[in-house]
């Protein structure tokens, strides 16, 4: 299938405005009623947020539509260490994301837009903005701001706090950003990839978008593939691709694959190479996981799943924003417990404790960080049941001493054709 978002790549330079227009044609101007029509098109396309939560984009736009002085915030923070898709978009096809942001601004009547991205990707964004200013007088004020560091910093309310000059700490919702967001103004926070899809749906329509996708996740999706594959990187795949085939797209397996981490660190484990599952909502949900931020990490048979799960939990506990007791103490307790299991230093009742605490932290924070960790641990409990009980009884295995697969630098950044 032909690339859509990544059309024109690989390329030695970011895709400039002229090439962008050659590849995709001009972005439509929304006339009277055009905003509502675009929202209806996003709904017909079934576009869901690509930042992790998978919330329907049309519903989010409707929640902002009609409110006074709205703001568009492009979330390119990409706090997920195994994800590199937003970086690829911002550095290689920035005009696609800008089109999406400007369409959102037109549709919702916004005059202000903030792009929140790591400082390292500001240069290509700014040069894309300069190209546009040279071509036409901008109708929207676009600011480029540095996104906060840390895993939780990309959560929408933490991001907004940071943009307001305060610590990047999540806030309790409601109020949602659509009601009271940046500096109290109604705010659409949308992931960079979601907006890139908007740019293409506005041009080609919902039917075109759905073509090549599955009912659950229509269209194509960007996936960051890493771990035991020959060519880790960011790829554009048709939604609905069987998971084992996704590994082939990344050059194939380097060794037998024990499990896949799907979605991101907050995602979930599925056994083997995901045989019988495909990259669409319904299929992934049947395995207790979701597409999340489009991350796939292949854990090789030579890696220890227990050591990986314990290390990942410890890292995630450490990334807690430290505001909510159940997150601070609950994730801390889970990390200690998994560390004891991995080391074979268990106490009576630890198995039951693992289940109890995993359930206990769900839904208990101001943001969904504890829920993500709980999902990762509960899927690990299912997929790695044998290894977990073996470690609990016998202590570390031969593979425990290997370098950790997770918690190593992000998937290679090159977009691959």
């Amino acid at each position, binding site marked *: 299938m032909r690339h859509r978002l990544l059309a024109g790549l690989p390329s030695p330079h970011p895709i400039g405005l002229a090439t962008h227009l050659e590849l995709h044609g001009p972005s439509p101007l929304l006339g009277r009623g055009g905003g509502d029509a675009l929202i209806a098109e996003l709904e017909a396309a079934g576009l869901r947020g690509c930042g992790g939560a998978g919330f329907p984009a049309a519903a989010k736009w409707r929640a902002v539509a009609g409110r006074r002085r709205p703001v568009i915030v492009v979330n390119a923070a990409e706090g997920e260490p195994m994800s590199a898709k937003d970086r690829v978009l911002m550095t290689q096809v920035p005009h696609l994301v800008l089109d999406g942001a400007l369409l959102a601004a037109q549709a919702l009547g916004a005059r202000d837009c903030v792009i929140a991205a790591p400082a390292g990707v500001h240069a290509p964004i700014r040069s894309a903005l300069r190209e546009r200013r040279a071509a036409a007088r901008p109708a929207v004020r676009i600011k480029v701001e540095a996104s906060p560091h840390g895993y939780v910093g990309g959560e929408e309310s933490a991001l907004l706090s940071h943009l307001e000059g305060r610590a990047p*700490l*999540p*806030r*309790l919702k409601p109020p949602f950003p659509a009601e009271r967001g940046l500096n109290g103004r109604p705010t659409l926070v949308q992931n960079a990839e979601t907006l890139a899809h908007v740019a293409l749906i506005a041009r080609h329509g919902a039917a075109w978008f759905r073509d090549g996708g599955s009912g659950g996740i229509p269209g194509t999706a960007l996936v960051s593939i890493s771990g035991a594959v020959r060519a880790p990187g960011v790829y554009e795949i048709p939604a609905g691709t069987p998971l084992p085939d996704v590994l082939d797209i990344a050059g194939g397996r380097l060794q037998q694959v024990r499990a896949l981490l799907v979605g991101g660190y907050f995602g979930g484990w599925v056994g083997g190479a995901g045989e019988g599952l495909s990259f669409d909502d319904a299929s992934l949900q049947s395995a207790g996981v979701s597409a999340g931020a489009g991350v796939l990490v292949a854990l090789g048979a030579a890696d220890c799943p227990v050591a990986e799960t314990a290390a990942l939990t410890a890292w995630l506990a450490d990334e807690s924003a430290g*505001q*909510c*007791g*159940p*997150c601070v*103490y*609950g994730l801390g*307790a889970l990390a200690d417990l998994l560390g004891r299991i991995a080391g074979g230093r268990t106490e009576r009742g630890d198995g039951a404790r693992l289940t*109890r*605490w995993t359930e*206990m932290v769900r839904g*208990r*924070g*101001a943001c969904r960080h504890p829920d993500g960790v709980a999902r990762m641990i509960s899927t690990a409990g299912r997929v790695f049941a044998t290894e977990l009980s073996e470690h609990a009884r016998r202590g570390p295995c031969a593979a425990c001493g290997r370098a950790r697969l997770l918690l190593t630098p992000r998937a290679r950044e090159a977009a691959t054709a």
Partner: protein
Amino acid sequence: MRPERLVVDPTACTAHGMCAELFPEWIQLDDWGYPMIDSGDVPPDLRDHAERAVKMCPALALKLRRGS
């Protein structure tokens, strides 16, 4: 009167545990001393218990919130 739910702001709660003592029908403490609250609408006959818990929370972390 419209139904209301009892919610806690976990960023404000300091685990005093007062609420669970005042309103045990609706609030239990987790293994770390933080309140786990029934997510349903507070029934009318328990309404004053809920209000008392809200008023007595030293961290002003409890709220009655309309709608589900």
